[in-house]
């Protein structure tokens, strides 16, 4: 009864967590990415009705300087932020407590045809003559393919998670590229070459690696690997994707080694003897009999290793430099999904756009690890099927 209760409550908790994650995460797509209490306005004669968040960013970055580029009239764009008001009106005109502020903004907008103004709701006069611009909601596609992650940018937040997803995959891929050969070599050594006594000492030691807290790995990465990467590649900073990959590789090694070693040790003795009796050398036997026989175990170990690498937060946060740019080399700083969530959730306003976007990131991460776990299940099932 107690057993049933505990298993039931565990499953319910898991389902609740996932449900909560998705409810919050999906919220990002139903909100406008403009900060609450602010608005964007243009001259009443402007034909533009709606803009994409990225377009607005380009306007305020002065990358788009004419309305015609957005399908409007041929009119140069004039930027206006609240603080610019003092350039056009003196303090006396605005009043002692800025009581004339709304009227002056209205006046400025109506007399400047190419204007786009970003200001607070409370400065919007009652008989506002300007035209309020609508901002498009973020679509799933834009969210996933957007290349800029500036969740607190003004006037409009940029919620492109592509750099984060790519950063995560990039670092994990690098980690597996480093960990797989080393892990495989170690597993072969332990199961096929090492003496029993050596193995009995080494294997528990390797398993112990899995129990070290990830912050400690982070320390190690920061103190040893980051300076090393910086020196070897002569970089301005050592906090790069490569440093993250190396730390993650070290963390994934115990999983890969333990699981592959178990699979290799399960190779029937008869198979190995058959191969050796035919005059095959030990190495030929290893790569022609042992490795193929334990291939699915090795794959499972590697995938589980990646799974751990993708979800890893602390160590990665400490060594990758956390720049949300699309990585084109392992020697540039990258930012991963878990590191983003850990670093930003504390400063995101609860219930706000940024907050929800981080939950959406959590959903993406969950989906990735979920797929990885399914893959492991598939591989190991295929294995047991083969043996019967």
């Amino acid at each position, binding site marked *: 009864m107690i057993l049933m209760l505990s298993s039931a409550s565990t499953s319910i908790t898991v389902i609740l967590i996932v449900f909560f994650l998705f409810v919050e995460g999906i919220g990002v797509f139903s909100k406008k990415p403009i900060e609450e209490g602010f608005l964007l306005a243009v001259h009443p004669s402007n034909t533009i009705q709606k803009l994409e968040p990225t377009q607005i960013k380009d306007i305020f970055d002065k990358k788009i300087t004419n309305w015609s580029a957005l399908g409007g009239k041929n009119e140069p764009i004039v930027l206006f932020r609240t603080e610019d008001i003092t350039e056009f009106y003196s303090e006396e005109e605005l009043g002692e407590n800025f009581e004339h502020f709304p009227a002056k903004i209205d006046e400025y907008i109506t007399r400047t045809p190419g204007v786009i103004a970003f200001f607070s709701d409370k400065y919007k006069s009652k008989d506002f003559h300007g035209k309020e611009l609508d901002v498009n909601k973020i679509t799933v596609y834009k969210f996933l393919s957007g290349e800029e992650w500036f969740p607190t940018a003004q006037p409009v937040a940029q919620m492109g998670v592509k750099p984060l997803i790519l950063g995560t995959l990039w670092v994990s891929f690098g980690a597996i590229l480093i960990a797989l050969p080393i892990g495989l070599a170690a597993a072969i050594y332990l199961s096929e070459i090492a003496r029993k006594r050596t193995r009995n000492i080494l294997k528990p030691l390797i398993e112990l690696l899995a129990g070290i807290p990830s912050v400690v790995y982070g320390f190690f990465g920061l103190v040893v690997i980051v300076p090393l990467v910086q020196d070897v590649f002569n970089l301005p900073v050592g906090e790069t994707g490569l440093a993250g990959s190396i730390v993650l590789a070290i963390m994934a090694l115990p999983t890969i080694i333990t699981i592959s070693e178990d699979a290799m040790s399960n190779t029937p003795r008869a198979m190995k003897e058959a191969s050796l*009796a035919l005059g095959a050398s030990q190495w030929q036997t290893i790569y022609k009999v042992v490795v193929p026989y334990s291939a699915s175990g090795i794959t499972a170990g590697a995938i589980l290793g990646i799974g751990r690498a993708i979800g890893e937060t602390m160590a990665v946060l400490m060594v990758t430099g956390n720049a949300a740019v699309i990585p084109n080399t392992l020697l540039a700083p990258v930012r991963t999904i878990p590191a983003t969530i850990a670093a930003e959730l504390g400063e995101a306003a609860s219930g706000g756009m940024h907050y929800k976007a981080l939950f959406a990131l959590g959903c993406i991460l969950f989906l990735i690890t979920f797929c990885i776990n399914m893959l492991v299940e598939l591989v190991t099932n295929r294995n047991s099927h083969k043996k019967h």
Partner: protein
Amino acid sequence: MHKIESKNVNFYYGETQALHDISLSMKENTVTALIGPSGCGKSTYLRLLNRMNDLIDKTHLNGEIYIDGHNIYAKNTNVDDLRKNVGMVFQKPNPFPKSIYENVAYGLKVNGITDKKVIEERVIKSIEQVALWDEVKDKLNKSAFELSGGQQQRLCIARALAIQPSVLLMDEPTSALDPISTAKVEELIYDLKNNYTIVIVTHNMQQAGRVSDNTAFFYMGELVEYDKTKNLFTNPRKERTQNYITGRFG
């Protein structure tokens, strides 16, 4: 000259002595049966002849074993080459999880033969040698596990023959087979005798009587009696041999 000759062989698993002072010689192109109760050391002795016991931790050997006049436990012996010359068939059929063709081709490939024509010729010849060709010629690319136990064991013999050894060791090759398959394997051993020196471990004394020229009786790690098979079974010199072959113990 004897094909296989062992002189005062003592063999230890850790502290336990498994073989005591075994001296045994076998002529070329003969079949020698090793008989005796379980744990008597006959399989251990067989596995010394292709150094299979090297795989077991903490074993060591005193004495000398010569094959073709060469001490196989000398430091300069290449174990892989030795095993190419001394093929082995195991107690249970142990084909690789590969196709029938690949199972036989494996030994050729690991021994550096890359010419596909040569490989194919030898594979076919070996399968024909074990009288399996008619049964498998249409399914060479199917998994070896689809064969029956008896067919698998003959495939394993073919696999051993493909690399053209001169000695063939058989460790109770029919203990996992039904009577008909057993008869086929025995027939095969009889045919192979003309070209190979065969050493076979068996629990089955009728089998020893049917297939072998000479028989060695092992008991408690010692070689009790070694003689022509006919003599050993009809007129044993030692009482323990007499008791064993008449079924009084073992």
